[in-house]
């Protein structure tokens, strides 16, 4: 008897048995369905988080180095960072000078203030004081109107470029360009609206709900924390390839500006997208691992359920096994019959689990973040389902296969 023929017939027999015991099959499948849904949704959510993260920081170019007082990702307590000297606007100018035109230097500073247009008020909006170079270092462009110009910055013009979210909230259908809004107590003229950035990572910046003003007006209108400017300096490298050497060049020049001795540590931090991604990946790696372990346990419990039912199924059909053996079924045929039964139940469960997970994913997609089930996850889910079926079905199937035909025939 060839294996494939054996397999085909065993599969049919198994299908018949499942159809004959629909409610039991469904209950058995339930454990696996829950397990598969949990595992897939975890993986999908993790992917969604990653996508959101990427989208949020898409404007943080990979070829941009940031010089700031504090590191973006702070390990331990921050005393040593808090006591550092602030980074002044002058330092930014000096850096620009020393880099001799290589790289684009843009200082910026952020604070919160309320916005008002006619009767509409938005509280706690991020106000970013920056220069005309902002759109070079951040890859964001205005959708309508224009961005800040060197002229605006040099002459402290009270003009602002607003995020698309702000434009929608304050102006709805009307064209914001040329309108005056109040930033705190000061009137600013809207000269441009940024294009929509979309997607905001939990707790991360929402670039659509910001406004940009000339950094030279920031001190007077928003005010510095503690009275002194502490800016972030973004420096775009001449090319992405030159990024690593350029980073050291920036560090070297900053140390000279700060007058540090060779033995002294840097009193500023270098930030870039890579550090952010690294720390994000290591954090998410742990979260996803924990998630998979927990959801994996539910899948394991589902597998134990399948094993349990298969033991019942084998015991219940002891006589049938005896009959089959009497008319010529070998141990392998019986083994395959029950293995097919358990793995078919689990495969169906996997498919149903996938469908439910797809529905959940669409809900997540609508409400939380961009998420989707990749073909890879589909394949993994189906393979895992069948494997759970085979593994949990094996012991019961083996027990059935090695039954003595005489005893099995006598069983009532």
């Amino acid at each position, binding site marked *: 008897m060839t294996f494939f023929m054996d397999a085909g017939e065993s599969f049919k027999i198994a299908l018949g048995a499942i159809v004959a015991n629909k409610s039991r099959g469904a209950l058995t499948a339930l454990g696996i369905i829950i397990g598969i849904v949990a595992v897939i949704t975890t993986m999908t959510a993790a992917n969604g988080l990653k996508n959101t993260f990427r989208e949020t920081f898409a404007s943080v170019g990979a070829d941009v180095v940031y010089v700031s007082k504090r590191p973006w990702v702070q390990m331990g307590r921050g005393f040593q960072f808090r006591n550092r000297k602030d980074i002044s606007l002058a330092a930014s100018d000096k850096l620009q000078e020393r880099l001799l035109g290589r790289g684009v230097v843009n200082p910026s500073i952020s604070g919160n203030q309320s916005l008002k247009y006619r009767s509409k008020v938005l509280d706690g909006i991020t106000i970013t004081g920056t220069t005309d170079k902002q759109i070079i270092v951040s890859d964001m462009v205005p959708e309508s109107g224009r961005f800040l110009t060197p002229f605006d910055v040099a002459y402290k013009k009270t003009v602002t470029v607003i995020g698309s979210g702000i434009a929608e909230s304050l102006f709805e259908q009307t064209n914001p360009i040329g309108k005056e809004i109040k930033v705190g107590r000061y009137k600013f003229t809207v000269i441009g609206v940024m294009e929509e950035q979309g997607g905001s990572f939990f707790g991360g910046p929402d670039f659509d709900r910001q406004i940009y003003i000339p950094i030279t007006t920031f001190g007077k209108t928003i005010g510095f924390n503690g009275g002194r400017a502490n800016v972030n300096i973004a420096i775009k490298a001449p090319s992405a390839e030159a990024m690593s050497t350029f980073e050291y060049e920036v560090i070297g020049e900053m140390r000279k500006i700060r007058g540090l001795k060779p033995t002294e540590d840097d009193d500023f931090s270098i930030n870039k997208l890579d550090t952010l991604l690294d720390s994000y990946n290591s954090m998410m790696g742990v979260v996803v691992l924990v998630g998979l372990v927990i959801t994996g346990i539910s899948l394991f419990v589902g597998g134990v359920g399948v094993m349990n039912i298969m033991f019942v199924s084998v015991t219940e059909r002891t006589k049938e096994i005896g009959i089959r053996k009497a008319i*010529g079924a070998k141990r392998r045929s019986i083994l395959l019959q029950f293995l097919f039964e358990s793995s078919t139940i689990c495969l169906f469960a996997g498919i149903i689990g996938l469908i439910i997970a797809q529905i959940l994913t669409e809900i997540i997609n609508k409400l939380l973040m961009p998420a989707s089930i990749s073909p890879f996850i589909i394949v993994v889910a189906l393979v895992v389902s069948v494997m759970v079926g085979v593994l949990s079905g094996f012991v019961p199937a083996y027990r059935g296969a090695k039954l003595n035909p005489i005893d099995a025939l006598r069983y009532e």
Partner: protein
Amino acid sequence: MSSDDLATVPLADGVILSIENVTRTYVMGDEEVHALKGVSITINKGEYVAIMGPSGSGKSTLMNMIGCLDVPSTGEYILENQAVSAMSEDQLAEIRNEKIGFVFQTFNLVPRVTVYQNIELPLIYKGVAKRHRRKIVEKAIEAVGLGERAKHKSNELSGGQRQRVAIARALVCEPAIILADEPTGNLDSSTGKEIMALMDGLHKKGHTIILVTHEDDIAEHANRTIRLRDGLLESSG
């Protein structure tokens, strides 16, 4: 492993099975039960034999042995030139599939599946291709007079019809012997007669039939009666 690989032991012309000085001992707890204590039987091709004996006589053990469901503790059992005594479990399954047609007292049909599927089952285990199976099964269904019941489930049939299905199932692999264990035991007398008539007809067509029974009027259908008592042969016709 296929049965072709097994050691062949030539039997005399016309002999289909030979049992030589066979014993079967079971261990039940601390006790040894000697179910067969040295039995020798020879059955010829085309014979119609009844095996009789009271309960505890070793009748069932002998039937299990002849049906290749069990192997002797000592002694030789040769079925169509093949030494059954030394076979592995899977080889026994193969031998049962090809050479034995079982008819049981309790019919022993596979539940939940149709008459057709029940009769087809031995052919599936034998590895007969689907297109060949159909013809064989249909012929067997006709032979036992169940033509219009092929699509019925076994639990929708009467006892007599179930036994007909069992007989059809026993026939499809063209076995060397048909081994019937109390085939009328669960049937009323008129249905029993029909089934025995069917068995007689099979004998006339040349089948070798071994009938295990404790009823004399059933045993009378056979040409020869083998009687067992206390694990020994009392008479062998």
